[in-house]
């Protein structure tokens, strides 16, 4: 069946609307590269018993970083992602993209990427960790999942005892 241009445009609108529903739109990434970078981030801080980089929306932090304070890292991301794809095709010739690798294959790829594209790997690692723990207003750490993971409660005023050992009953 031939799809008209108008239908194509509509499909595009729906797809964007659907993406926008689950999360704000991207400013630097296109949808495909966002998915790929998110796959890398999800290997750095995996989901599992508790939310990881994916649930924290770290990809939105990274998108914002590349739009603003780490704008100068854009070429590094572009180059790095291309290297990661080359590596993927070498290791897993039948695969389609990073996002659809199973977790064992993704970890294997990451281990090689860490050695072969160290600068890019480090940039994504730092951004993922920053995004997981940064103020949620940056787009990551959604619902403070990063802070919850490490047991940090936010506040501007705390009263002692703060923990187990300074509580009077600890003696």
């Amino acid at each position: 069946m031939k799809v008209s241009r108008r239908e194509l445009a509509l499909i595009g609108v729906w797809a964007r609307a659907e993406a926008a529903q689950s999360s704000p739109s991207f400013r630097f990434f296109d949808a495909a590269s966002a998915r790929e970078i998110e796959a890398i981030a999800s290997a750095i801080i995996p989901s599992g018993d508790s939310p990881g980089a994916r649930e924290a929306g770290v990809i939105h932090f990274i998108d914002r970083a590349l739009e603003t304070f780490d704008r100068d890292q854009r070429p590094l991301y572009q180059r790095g992602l291309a290297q990661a794809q080359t590596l993927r095709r070498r290791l897993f010739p039948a695969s389609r993209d990073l996002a659809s690798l199973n977790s064992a294959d993704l970890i294997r790829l990451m281990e090689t990427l860490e050695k072969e594209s160290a600068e890019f790997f480090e940039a994504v690692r730092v951004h993922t960790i920053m995004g997981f723990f940064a103020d949620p207003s940056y787009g990551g750490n959604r619902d403070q999942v990063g802070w919850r993971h490490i047991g940090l409660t936010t506040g501007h005023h705390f009263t002692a005892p703060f923990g187990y050992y300074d509580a009077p009953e600890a003696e």
Partner: protein
Amino acid sequence: MIAYRPRDVVDFAIIGAGAAGGVVAKELAAAGFSVVLLEQGPNFTEKDYSHDERKFMFDRVLTNNHRQQPNTFRVTDKEKAVVQPAVGYGRQVGGGTVHFTGNYWRLHPGDFNERSRWGAVPGANLSDWPITYEELEPYYTKAEQELGISGLGGANPFDGPRSRPYPLPPMPAKGSGVLFDRAAKKLGLHSFPAPLAILSQPYRGRGACANCGFCEGFGCEMRAKSSTAVTVIPAALRTGRCELRTGAVVSQIETDALGRVTGVVYFDARKASIRQRAKAVVVCANGAETPRLLLLSKSARFPHGLANGHGVVGKNLMWDTGMLAMGLFEQPLNEYKGVQVTRVLHDYYDSDGKRGFFGGGGIDARFDWYPMGFALDGLPKDVPRWGSGFKSFVGEAFTRTMSLCGHTTCLPVEGNRIDLDPAQKDAWGLPALRATFKNHPDDLKTLRFVLDRQLEILAAAGARRVWSDEVKDVAFSVHLMGTCRMGNDPRTSVVNRDHQAHEVPNLFLVDGSSFVTSGRQQPTCTIQALAYRASEKMVAWARRA
């Protein structure tokens, strides 16, 4: 605020509104002199601060920005210095007192005459101070009272005598402090409550610390940290005789044919060059920028830089030497709440002939990690850097870790210095600061010795797991000392015992650059005591002149 015109000849132009500069401005203005206080950075208030780790720790909002003001660094003269952040300091009204940890240790009486007590140390330029603890004591007390310091006088058995108790009681021990006390008791050591430039109770119109935890590296939203920005600088402005100019990057101190200072030249916020005339100039730009400014101020009379006839300016640079050791405990401490440090010990502070090297150190119990920094740099080297092992360790360790920080001797070595880079320039076109630094071999032995004591204490405290970095030469410092040392001999020191330049009677240098020895770090208390004392001397000098 009063406004002077650049062509007005003010009594004093002060360069740098930091730890020392704030004190000097207040004292001179209160004594009736006209003062222009020049600060390159902005004037922040509590409204500008937040707990945003990314912004304050990674964008260097409160500290010198190495993109605008790069420095170069090399270990020895044999190498070409490369652009690499090596000096860090607070760059705003309040200088380093805005974002510092607030550890506020007095020097010990024996710090002032280590050379006489221990003799020469080969390869080091160890000298006695030209003043004694007894001479400085009234000014330590004045600093504590005026600025608002918490602590427990007499609790440290190694401290010198004090004429008055601290104005405020100490902060209560956090979990790290409780464990530290327990371990110290077991080992027969003498832990004591940390003296802090932080209010444990309301004081002189400011509120008490709210234990918010985002303290070191951050500005205090409660005005409880006793920075000069919330204490003496507002008091200086209230006299009606002090004008504060921010965004003023001083590029030169000018002199006349007689070799007397006539004023300063600075770039204003729009990079226009302005000349402020003054009867005397006080440089309080810190242990890195003060010597740089003197070296930038060359003239026919001072071809090697101002007050540098004997080539001493910039030499004997001493840095922030000390290591962190981490311990992981069974139960949560939640050290991210509250001030960083609540307990200290000085049992290993003095040198000891039996150790076979010169130097010693103090140790404090603290936690100065924030989530991103901890996850990126704070973990043991054998914990994975990413993946599920990484995630679970960070999740468990953040609330259960405490650190012990060593603060150790940095011997003065003549070749360690600040000078001007021959090629690199800053955003104002001025030659960049070049640092040359390699620790004296004894410094590394002291680091090793004190680190071993830190690890012992952590073990005695019941840590399940301990880790630390490797002992190595320091390559980055936030304590900047010794580069215009005080002394009686004009051939080996830059200023006299009253902080007056030997070669220029109306030029005074007061800040970390005045130090003769490093003590055991935590220089700010002594910098501010010196600033109170120097101000009194300057007032007497100006009244005579």
